[in-house]
């Protein structure tokens, strides 16, 4: 019983420990202190070196601009779509697409989008030359554009499914049907009524996920490497370049850049909060103004169009890469390759076995740990009547709010100076930091919603708490447990920086391979790698759907439980 009682504290340590240790390990070198590399005294030299980098102002502008824009677009799309379409068939369709969309790793989505929208990409291949007249790709700056527009599109497309999921989870607590009925009775249009009556209650609940999206978008590295500009790149990418440079003296400058990145994210979160307050004031005035209909058809169409566009971009992008993986020569402007064959799979597939095994191992370990901790925490909560406060939700989100580049370099440096080196253990710990919050978020609601009267009945039949947990609660909640496992697995597989930096570049997973190959640009290998990666993520999701049905095929009452 004692270890169970300690579970919440242990979880907190394992989750926040690496973040705080990493932040400390970043702050030290940023201020010139890193004894292993001869930094013994406080100094502003790293900051000065950072300031002297001529690309700094633009890199900062890119980080802030792309992060805010991607978050605004994603939130706006999700809001408009939910306002115009919740409860309809379009919404139900998107809900079904949600799992696969969420399962596509960020790099895969970015690489797919890159092939879709490039001047020599699939869209223009399909339209050329008959519609455009182009025999050669036009010299248009679509990818790597200095404004980061392609990167904004990629980030938004990948964050929309996540925010939809969060909104769907938040909706029931906002009692949308009742609010909407009242609004409609008062003569408000569907969208206008939803925006005025339901949105404030929903937003209050999805605020933390939105903050996480903002923090992520500002500091994403993998998506930025694929879609973002390179002259100069966004700050986070440059920090990683300095960090991975064999010239170890650049670590100081990298640490200073990482601290700056943290400052930028905090400032942007503050700015967003101010925006929230301003929007609330304006919104209240608008809500009380009594306008009944606000361009309803336009808003509805926009919501559906944007959501469909985001889903189509991810799915078509993947389809394009799948085609590349079996393509013979495929030149512009052909819409389809010259020939189809398994040559690329035969050639590059075997080389993926080692990184695939590493990916599975890391994801398996991190997910198993996260699941065990989450179950222990939830069970402790249940047995000891611990009430989770709103503050614990903040703690849960902290690793998602602190930019990865701000603490992962520190974690690497710290591990190095402790002589721990860079190994699988450090990487699993780093993955756990990101896997745990998602597993917890996915599992806590259904776990808490479980009717405790089942436990009472079981206890009356003579079962102890352990047996109730094993024989009643866990089987009944099998479906959500498996879903949470699949989510955790997907999160781990998609991790780029938490593999690269704590692993010192020596641990190769499908994601690190995919990012490295992106620099290589051979779409056949990229296609093969990305498909293997996506299958690896999608398989647990499929299993989570199928397993309860198979296991309980003779127990009708258990199917669809939870």
């Amino acid at each position: 019983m004692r270890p169970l009682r300690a579970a919440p504290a242990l979880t907190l340590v394992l989750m926040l420990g690496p973040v705080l240790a990493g932040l400390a390990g970043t702050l030290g070198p940023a201020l010139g202190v890193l004894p292993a590399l001869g930094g013994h005294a406080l100094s502003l030299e790293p900051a000065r070196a950072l300031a002297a980098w001529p690309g700094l102002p633009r890199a900062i502008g890119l980080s802030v601009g792309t992060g805010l824009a991607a978050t605004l677009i994603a939130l706006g799309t999700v809001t408009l779509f939910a306002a115009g379409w919740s409860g309809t068939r379009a919404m139900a369709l998107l809900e079904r697409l949600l799992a696969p969309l969420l399962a596509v790793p960020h790099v895969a989505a970015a690489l797919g989008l890159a092939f879709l929208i490039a001047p020599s990409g699939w869209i223009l291949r399909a339209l050329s030359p008959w519609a455009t007249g182009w025999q050669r790709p036009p010299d248009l700056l679509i990818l790597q554009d200095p404004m980061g527009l392609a990167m904004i599109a990629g980030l938004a497309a990948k964050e929309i499914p996540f925010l939809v999921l969060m909104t769907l989870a938040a909706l029931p607590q906002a009692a949308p049907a009742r609010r909407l009925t009242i609004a409609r009775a008062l003569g408000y249009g569907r969208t206008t009524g939803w925006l005025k009556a339901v949105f404030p209650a929903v937003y209050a609940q999805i605020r933390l996920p939105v903050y996480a999206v903002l923090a992520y978008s500002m500091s994403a590295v993998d998506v930025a490497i694929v879609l973002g500009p390179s002259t100069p790149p966004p700050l986070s990418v440059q920090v990683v370049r300095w960090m991975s440079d064999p010239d170890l003296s650049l670590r100081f400058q990298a640490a200073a850049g990482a601290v700056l990145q943290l400052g930028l994210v905090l400032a942007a979160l503050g700015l967003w909060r101010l925006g929230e307050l301003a929007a609330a004031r304006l919104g209240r005035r608008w809500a009380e103004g009594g306008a009944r209909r606000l361009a309803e058809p336009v808003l509805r169409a926009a919501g559906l169009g944007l959501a469909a566009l985001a889903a189509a971009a991810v799915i078509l992008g993947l389809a394009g890469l799948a085609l590349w993986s079996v393509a013979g020569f495929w030149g512009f402007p052909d819409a389809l390759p010259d020939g189809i064959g398994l040559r690329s799979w035969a050639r590059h597939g075997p080389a993926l076995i080692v990184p695939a095994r590493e990916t599975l191992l890391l994801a398996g370990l991190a997910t198993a740990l996260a699941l065990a901790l989450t179950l222990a925490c939830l069970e402790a909560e249940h047995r000891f009547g611990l009430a989770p406060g709103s503050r614990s939700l903040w703690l849960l989100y902290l690793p998602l709010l602190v930019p990865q580049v701000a603490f992962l370099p520190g974690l690497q440096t710290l591990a190095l100076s402790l002589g721990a080196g860079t190994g699988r253990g450090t990487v699993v710990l780093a993955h756990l930091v990101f896997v745990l919050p998602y597993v917890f978020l996915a599992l806590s609601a259904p776990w808490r919603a479980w009717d405790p009267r089942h436990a009472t009945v079981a206890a009356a039949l003579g079962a102890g708490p352990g047996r109730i947990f094993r024989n009643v609660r866990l089987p009944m909640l099998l479906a959500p447990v498996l879903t949470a496992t699949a989510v955790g697995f997907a999160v781990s597989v998609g991790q780029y920086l938490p593999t690269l930096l704590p692993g010192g570049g020596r641990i190769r997973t499908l994601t690190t391979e995919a990012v490295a190959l992106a620099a290589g640009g051979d779409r056949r290998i990229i296609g093969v790698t990305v498909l293997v990666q996506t299958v690896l993520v999608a398989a647990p999701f499929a299993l989570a759907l199928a397993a309860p049905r198979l296991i309980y095929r003779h127990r009708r009452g258990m199917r669809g439980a939870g």
Partner: protein
Amino acid sequence: MRRFAPLAVTLGLLASPAPSSDLASDPADWPALLAEAEGQTVYWNAWGGAAATNDFIRWAANEVGDRYGVTVEHVKLADTADAVSRVLAEKTAGKDTGGAIDLIWINGPNFAAMKEAGLLYGPWAWDLPNWRYVDTEGKPAVTADFTVPTEGFEAPWAMAQVVFYHDTARLAEPPKTMPALLDWARAHPGRFTYPQPPDFLGTTFLKQALYELAPAPSVLQKPTDEADYAAVTAPLWAFLDELTPHLWRQGRAYPQSGPQQLQLMADGEIDLAISFSPGEASTAISNGQLPDTVRTFVLEGGTIGNASFVAIPYNASARAGAMVLANFLLSPEAQAQAQDPDILGYGTVLAMDKLAPGDRARFEALDLGIATLSPAELGPALPEPHPSWATRLEADWIARYGVAP
């Protein structure tokens, strides 16, 4: 390459005289050395990033094992610097014998740093039996590695030379000088680019252009601080200032690597690309990565060439075995195998006129592929500039074009 400046400094501080070669492993007495090597295990630290190279290394390892009883283990490196750091760490820890590395695939700044710090065993390479076939006159790169004389501390095993490739279907007559390239780019904006420095290939383009544009290119063989850097590079920057607005995407974006540049060529986005591997285009054609209308050419006045070498750390455990392997890599058989574009497509370091007719026939029988130039067409190779030029060119390029608004 650029990565080496700081390590070189560190090594410089630790520099000490090279250890004397008082051990039995003497390539001049080859039969005795073969006897000594039998049963040894050679840990060959070599870049492991390409399937083709790994396959070739496996082939060589099997051959050496069958013929001489020497076991070869390929330690796959992501970066040669890792091996150098390892030897340095061993030296710092006082482990002067029984080191973990027996042979390193090395060149350029890595070699310079290790040689200067006394981390290499030797000289031994010029006493290898197969050294007599090496083309020391025609390929100066086999005896001076990035301006640093090898003095027999490393044995060459492959040649690389800068070439350009173009799609004849879109560009029949490619420009063969830098000024001609500029004129062509002006007339065809957006059809040329190069990988973004500090990518190795991008920096090579800068060095190649500097060779042609510098008032007196011989100064490139000296460190930059012995030359008037500003005056030497001024014509290069003037050239790039003119060229950049006519580049692909007006120079606002660049491919990030050689392979990405190759993909742009395949997509028809550019008509002309730089490569450091004379056989790359042929290999890409046979892989379906490039259309079969692509051909290779070199610039008038020659292009930069360099050689890949193997070296033995001062504390290696299996010196004799390492020398047997190095000697095998210099054999006409291994060299012909490496030059086969279906296997590796690397240039040979041997002189054809020094070979026996039967060995020469091996090379003559090779089908180099439709896009590969013959050694005669490839022309003379220019020596690599001193490493300090690359470092400064990269820094200046980034400040001028790499962070452009």
